């Protein structure tokens, strides 16, 4: 009898200490965001996190609560910051039914010819579309080359656990900004890819394969390591609108490009027009390596996307080609950041933006050349097209050069479609709408030609849709 009682007491003690912990540190947290350490712990337990990850999440939560919102950039009024927990743990009522999905989303699926089966998955209604089969096939194919392509959660246990731990949120630490901290606390799902030295991965890997994985999208973490001399092309997103009732996407992408390795990261993003897309993407490039970003950004209500390239090793190279199309009700604040930390590094940023129907496009960038980075070269070019006077287009580039052996050039242009160009195309029989559409597609062509064909075709279709104003 007595021993039995003793055991019970022990259990009580443990319970109480957990309770104490909560009382001492968490009361204020609960008031602020509804996101408590208890909830974060719960997430960690559910995910079967190793201990280091659980502590990491808790530390990130603390940082999140202490950090202010950014004092620059588009307004984030549509985000319910006070109830962040609802984005993390949506209650079952929040899970959407097909009948709740907005009509304009359904229409876009129709116009883009999205197969019926995929629509439910894209609309966040359920996991009926099974991309698992395709995913498994791709996995097997690249595994033959020694490539590891798996979900991060399982990669944290087993052979690659230490590799993941060494790299996880080292490139984008939770202290980077408030939503990186949030991500650190509640991240869920995502891909882990490791390409061994010298391996050139012949087929592009696509995040699309894993669309319906649990927690997919919102707080997804992508960690890719391309070892010495290897090559990988990773494609993120798709042109079909992704809809989610919980309208925050605070994902994180970390790319480690090894010596003389090459990585191409392509994105077509068309999140539904209620989304706040606050994704943080960063690549670190070692000696002789290269990162190529290709980006087509069409969706979201508000986005803040600034893929950053850290040129760590001598001779490293970064290239960024991107297009942003902001239509009615959208405020897309996108750009690129480059940090030259070593000699003989080079960067080229080439962006285009289109503003239409009251949309607001902001190009925001930074190019920094550190004192020790001799003989670096950087060129930035951005071109903006205004399609009417309801819209806005702002260009805010900044260069910070701390080395005199640098060669830095920058140019930007803004204007409208020329009347003579429209007249010329109309004189060849095209209607005015078609003429505008062709000119805008031509404007976007430097980006679409960098994408694999199916994506380029999808992107052109998206542009046509946006131009005809039939996307809500």
């Amino acid at each position, binding site marked *: 009898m007595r021993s039995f009682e003793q055991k019970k007491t022990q259990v009580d003690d443990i319970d109480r200490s957990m309770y104490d912990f909560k009382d001492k540190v968490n009361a204020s947290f609960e008031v602020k965001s509804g996101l408590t350490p208890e909830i974060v712990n719960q997430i960690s337990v559910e995910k079967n996190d190793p201990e280091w990850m659980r502590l990491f999440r808790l530390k990130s939560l603390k940082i999140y609560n202490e950090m202010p919102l950014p004092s620059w950039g588009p307004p984030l009024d549509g985000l319910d910051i006070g109830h962040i927990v609802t984005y993390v743990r949506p209650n079952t009522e929040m899970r959407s039914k097909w009948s709740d999905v907005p009509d304009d989303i359904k229409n876009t699926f129709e116009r883009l010819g999205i197969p019926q089966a995929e629509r439910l998955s894209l609309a966040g209604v359920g996991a009926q579309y099974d991309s698992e089969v395709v995913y498994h096939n791709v996995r097997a194919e690249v595994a033959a080359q020694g490539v590891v392509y798996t979900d991060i959660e399982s990669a944290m246990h087993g052979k690659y656990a230490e590799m993941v731990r060494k790299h996880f949120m080292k490139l984008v630490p939770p202290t980077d900004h408030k939503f990186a901290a949030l991500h650190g606390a509640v991240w869920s799902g995502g891909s882990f890819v490791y390409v061994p030295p010298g391996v050139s991965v012949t087929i592009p890997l696509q995040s699309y394969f894993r669309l319906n994985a649990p927690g997919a999208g919102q707080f997804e973490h992508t960690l890719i390591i391309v070892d010495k001399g290897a090559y990988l092309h990773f494609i993120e997103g798709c042109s079909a609108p992704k809809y989610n009732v919980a309208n925050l996407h605070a994902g994180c992408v970390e790319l480690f490009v090894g010596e003389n390795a090459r990585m191409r990261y392509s994105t077509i993003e068309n999140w539904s027009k209620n989304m706040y897309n606050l994704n943080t993407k960063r690549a670190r490039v070692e000696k002789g390596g290269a990162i190529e970003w290709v980006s087509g950004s069409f969706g979201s209500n508000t986005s803040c996307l600034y893929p950053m390239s850290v040129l760590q090793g001598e001779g490293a190279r970064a290239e960024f080609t991107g297009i942003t199309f902001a239509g009615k009700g959208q405020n897309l604040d996108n750009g690129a950041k480059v940090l030259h930390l070593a000699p003989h590094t080079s960067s080229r940023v080439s962006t285009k933006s289109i503003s239409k129907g009251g949309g607001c496009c902001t190009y925001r960038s930074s190019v920094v050349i550190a004192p020790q980075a001799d003989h670096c070269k950087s060129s930035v070019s951005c071109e903006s097209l205004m399609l009417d006077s309801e819209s806005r287009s702002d260009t805010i580039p900044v260069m910070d050069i701390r080395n005199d052996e640098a060669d830095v050039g920058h140019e930007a242009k803004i204007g409208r479609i*020329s009347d003579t160009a429209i007249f*010329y195309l109309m004189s060849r029989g095209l209607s005015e709408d078609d003429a505008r559409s062709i000119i805008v597609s031509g404007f976007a062509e430097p980006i679409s030609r960098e994408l694999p064909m199916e994506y380029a075709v999808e992107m052109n279709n998206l542009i046509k849709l946006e131009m005809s104003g039939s996307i809500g």
Partner: protein
Amino acid sequence: MSHELLKIENLQVGVEDKVILDGLNLKICEGETHVLMGPNGAGKSTLGYAIMGHPQYTVNEGSIVFDGEDITQEPTDVRARKGIFLSFQSPEEVPGIALGNFLRVSQAAVTGKEPRILAFQKEMRKTMETLGIDPGYAARYLNVGFSGGEKKKSEILQMLMLNPKLAILDETDSGLDVDAVKIVSRGIRQYRSDKNALLIITHNAKILEGLSVDYVHVLVNGKIIRTGDSSLIQEIGERGFQFLETGGAQN
């Protein structure tokens, strides 16, 4: 009396606040080749733009009737689809669209049906060959980085591929070297038939060699002050435009 393609009556055209064409009359029938000459600034290009419906040029008075239909208020693409073609003096550069793709889209727009890929490519290659255009140009962006001569050839290529009822060529010979002029001339001759018509705007007669010209009009100060036959070209070549201005209108 062959079929009347273009009838312009009492046309007054202005741009911004200036009147450029003032009471212009012109009639072009099927199978005819007309030449429009005149000193610089007379309004020759304006006539081309007005027939094609350039948005910056306003028709204040008069009418343009094409193939029996009044097109004075019609938008440019409608006019193109009815069968009018304008070869530009300074063709636009349109980045991002390949010449070959553009030709196909344009042909589809003008004929109303999508050309079959193989047949189209064959036709395009053959036409490019006649004009001495490197087949590689089909992949280049429309007019981007083309030399003056290459741009003009690109315009004639488009004309041959779209096969309009009325082709207006605005200063097509300017910027071309001797060989290019010969080639373009050949292209124009290839186009000409009993069923279509040509209006060549020029102030230099080189392009006209080898072409049988039916009417020559002289445009001065926004009006056609003299119409004659091909011998007028030589007269102007020898005596300039001045003698006509003082000589008064004669139609």
